[in-house]
């Protein structure tokens, strides 16, 4: 297949699998899994330093940040104002102005607040951030986020960490239809076929964390997701067959070898 790169935030990427760094049992496994994934965009979180027992956890040392695009997130932020503060802290902490914007007031389902997300996205885009907002699969909201200057829109497949796969492909289709920025399916993918499905539908990329980190073999699963994404993208480019209500024989109807059938008149 010819080069099939995609452009995000003015940069060109060849891998369409983005990977998070949460929940890994140790940095060695994380590093190997990220390598196996081929991911060129890697997500991290921002948290308060534990003042009673300070110390660094080594994440900054565990990865070659020159080789991957760092994507800090605002996970844990419940309001637009919290997300703005964390995004600005992330920028000075990393020197990177990319931000995966999460505004999530609801802890049970971790579903994003569309109004707060749009408000924060407008402020961050105006402040020079490359904004990648995490949202429900809502086409009207996606267009508003594009208009606000977001570099991508990241509709969820199913709740974060649930591994339930793409629960509303019809809604994702409406987001993809006419999108002017990359659409990256984020959250809820459980197995590589979920990622393949998202890419088959036309998503530009997916972001996966828990499905890799919580696999029995995270490195093997990272590789499997890389293959799933490649298969899905190749299928999208190749163009799927039309779906039909009834069967359609694959073999020619003429010249079929028949035995006399007593039920059928000659």
């Amino acid at each position, binding site marked *: 297949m010819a080069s099939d790169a995609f452009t995000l935030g003015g940069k060109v990427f060849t891998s369409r699998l983005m*990977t*998070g*760094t*949460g*929940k*890994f049992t140790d940095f060695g496994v*994380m590093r190997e899994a990220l390598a196996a994934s081929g991911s060129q965009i890697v*997500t*991290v*979180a*921002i*948290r*308060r*330093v534990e*003042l009673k027992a*300070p110390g*660094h*956890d080594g*994440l*900054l040392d565990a990865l070659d940040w020159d080789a991957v695009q760092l994507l*800090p*997130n605002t*996970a844990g932020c419940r309001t637009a104002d919290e997300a703005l*503060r*964390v995004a*600005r*802290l*992330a*920028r*000075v*902490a*990393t*020197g990177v102005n990319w931000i995966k914007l999460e505004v999530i007031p609801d802890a049970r389902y971790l579903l994003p607040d569309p109004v707060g997300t749009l408000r924060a996205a407008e402020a961050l885009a105006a402040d020079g951030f490359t904004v990648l907002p995490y949202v429900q699969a809502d086409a009207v909201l996606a267009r508003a986020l594009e208009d606000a200057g977001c570099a991508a829109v990241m509709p969820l497949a199913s709740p*974060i960490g649930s591994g339930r796969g793409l629960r509303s492909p019809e809604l994702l289709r409406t987001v993809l239809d006419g999108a002017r920025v990359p659409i990256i399916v984020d959250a809820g993918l459980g197995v590589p076929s979920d990622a393949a499905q998202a890419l088959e539908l036309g998503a530009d990329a997916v*972001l*996966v*964390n*828990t499905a890799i*980190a919580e696999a029995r073999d995270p490195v093997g699963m990272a590789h499997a997701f890389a293959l799933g994404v490649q298969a899905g993208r190749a299928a999208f480019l190749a163009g799927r067959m039309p779906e039909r209500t009834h069967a359609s024989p694959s073999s020619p109807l003429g010249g079929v070898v028949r035995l006399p059938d007593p039920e059928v008149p000659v």
Partner: protein
Amino acid sequence: MTRPATLPATLTVNGEARPLTPGLTLHALLRDLNVNPARVAVAVNDDFYPGARAPQRTLEAGDVIEIVRIIGGG
């Protein structure tokens, strides 16, 4: 904001109140907390600094300070 003179001056650091020593700087606060400045980012109210380039800013009563770091997340 005016405080009654009888109350001790405090800062809020990562959500917790902390007594303010007169003349305390941001640098000195990080040192007192045993935080490696190279590993963190700091906000003092609405001003944001990489820890390693935190200015010799004198902290004032009522300042709200966040000290954060990067951790694994998705």
